[in-house]
């Protein structure tokens, strides 16, 4: 232990934890940049990573909405779906304002055009939902957004003439690269770049005064308001901002980058719950924590599809093979559930929180907290006269 402490203090003095953290982050980014160039990696592995990046965007933006701004929404997947479905519909049918007699044909939209429109509509719906949610708190907000999300999913399922129903809807392919290997490579970098851009944008917001106001709103809306924070404005703003991020991510991911079609099944409450679970495991109040939580969870869930246990000492199974293959199937989700329960019970800030705090050096400033609590042992909270 003494050695560890000495290493720690040496690091604090010479390099600084923060810089060490940035260096580590740099290495991780380098790894991701290098990964698809590793010839031994299959296209399947790259696909897993691409979907990992997508879920990292979903969970980190949910962390901004729920963990930082305190809006525990279940509508996140629906906003993603709006981005994707709108892009797909525009790509197929164009835009028609029947009453005005104006129409823009589908052909006149590029894939990027459809993605932009999908993103904007997701933001617009975010504006409306944010406004409708203004007076709802905690459980009511969750219930409302579940209802909204289910309503959207069922609409997509039943209006199959337009949406393709359970078969889903394909969007206009964003990249048109014939060679599969080359295509996968570009898709990988595109999704990774999108993740980085989204994280940067969200960190910029979180570290600006807006981020401070969002957290104040999360802690106590009335107090924040009394301190001069326009709670209505920031609540709507965070809904619009995160809706646009996931709308964009959805429209790009399903434009044949990560998946060739959006299906209503993707919008089920279970899928939304997974997004939340990833964020909780990684750390709801940390964007990078939630992103890492999602990526690692996706990766492990994939890796655990099949567990291969090699037999020792040259033993063989009756069929002559030397390994036991366990088809984990749904069991991996059970393991995942246990991890989530453990996190909520013992590490409310997420499994990655200790690491992130250590690198930020925040724990240094906090060390004395416990001692000071009893310093001024006043009679507080006893005067329980009711407020309001």
């Amino acid at each position, binding site marked *: 232990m003494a050695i560890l402490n000495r290493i720690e203090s040496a690091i604090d003095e010479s390099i600084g934890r923060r810089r060490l953290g940035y260096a580590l982050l740099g290495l991780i980014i380098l790894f991701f940049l290098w990964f698809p160039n590793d010839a031994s990696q299959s296209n399947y592995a790259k696909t897993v990573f691409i979907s990992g990046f997508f879920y990292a965007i979903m969970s980190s933006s949910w962390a901004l909405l729920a963990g930082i701004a305190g809006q525990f929404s279940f509508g996140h997947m629906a906003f993603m779906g709006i981005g994707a479905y709108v892009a797909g519909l525009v790509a197929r049918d164009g835009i028609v304002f029947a009453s005005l007699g104006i129409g823009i044909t589908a052909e006149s939209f590029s894939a990027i055009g459809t993605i932009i429109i999908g993103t904007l509509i997701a933001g617009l719906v975010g504006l409306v939902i944010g406004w409708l949610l203004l007076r709802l708190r905690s459980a009511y907000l969750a219930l409302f957004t579940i209802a909204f999300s289910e309503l959207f999913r069922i609409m997509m399922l039943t209006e199959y003439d337009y949406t393709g129903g359970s078969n889903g809807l394909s969007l206009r392919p964003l990249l048109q690269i014939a060679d599969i290997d080359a295509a996968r490579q570009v898709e990988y970098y595109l999704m990774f770049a999108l993740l980085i851009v989204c994280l940067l944008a969200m960190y910029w917001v979180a570290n600006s005064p807006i981020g401070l106001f969002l957290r104040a709103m999360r802690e106590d809306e009335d107090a924040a308001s009394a301190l001069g924070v*326009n709670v209505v404005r920031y609540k709507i703003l965070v809904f619009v901002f995160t809706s646009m991020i996931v709308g964009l991510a959805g429209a790009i991911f399903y434009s044949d980058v990560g998946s060739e079609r959006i299906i209503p099944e993707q919008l089920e409450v279970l899928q939304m719950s997974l997004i939340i679970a990833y964020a909780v495991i990684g750390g709801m*109040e940390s964007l990078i924590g939630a992103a890492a939580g999602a990526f690692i969870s996706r990766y492990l869930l994939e890796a655990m599809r099949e567990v291969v246990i090699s037999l020792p000492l040259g033993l063989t199974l009756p069929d002559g093979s030397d390994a036991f293959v366990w088809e984990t199937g749904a069991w991996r989700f059970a393991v995942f559930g246990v991890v989530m329960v453990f996190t909520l019970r013992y590490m409310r800030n997420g499994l990655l929180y200790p690491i992130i705090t250590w690198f930020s050096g925040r724990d240094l400033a906090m060390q004395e907290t416990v001692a000071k*609590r009893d310093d001024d042992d006043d009679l507080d909270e006893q005067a329980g006269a009711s407020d309001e």
Partner: protein
Amino acid sequence: MSDINLLLNRVSKRFGGNQAVDHVSFSVTKPELIGMIGPNGAGKTTLTNLMSGMLKPTTGTIYLNGRRIDGHPAYDVTRAGLGRTFQITRALGRMTVLENMMVPGLAHRPRARRLDLEERAHEILGLLTIDHLTNEYSRALSGGQRKLLELGRLLMLEPSVIILDEPFAGVHPRLQETIYQYIHRVHEDGKAIILISHDMDAVFELSHRLLVLHHGALIADGAPQAVRSDPAVIEAYLGHDEDD
């Protein structure tokens, strides 16, 4: 010194059949130290909520520095120059003490340099003797320290009128002393202070003027000595069983 002009004109608030605030009129036009007293349930907190924009009056109007503020959202009233604390403290728990100060700081002066605001925050926290807690999460503070933090946050808003709802209730005597000093300083700074308490003795010494609420109505408004010997006030206090 900023100009001060708070004007309440026949302000009322009903909760169902309960007339919590009953046609209250008064004005504050100079940096006074005003005590607002009344037994528990007299309507002091409700009146504070009406003035600070947390509640909308059933009838009546409120003007602050020439702007009509009744029914305006709380943040707007705050920006117009009225700051308040809460009877039950409302620290932003999972934010540090400094962040608690920076929220009103940046809300009030969005264009200021963060460093300047932080410097000002440190200064105020020093005045309140809680500068050693700057980087603590405010939920780790004792109740008394949280009250001090609320008082500090107010100053970041540079308000012209401050309403303190029961600032001494349940606070350790040592911290109460700090609160007294705070009140004097803020008053010398040229701000009007409305000091709310259900306990007449607590504010009697401090105030230049007393407002007395009873069953939602303002039954006295004047110099402390005169108010104290007012038969209606004596009746209101003696005719009531005080619970603390």
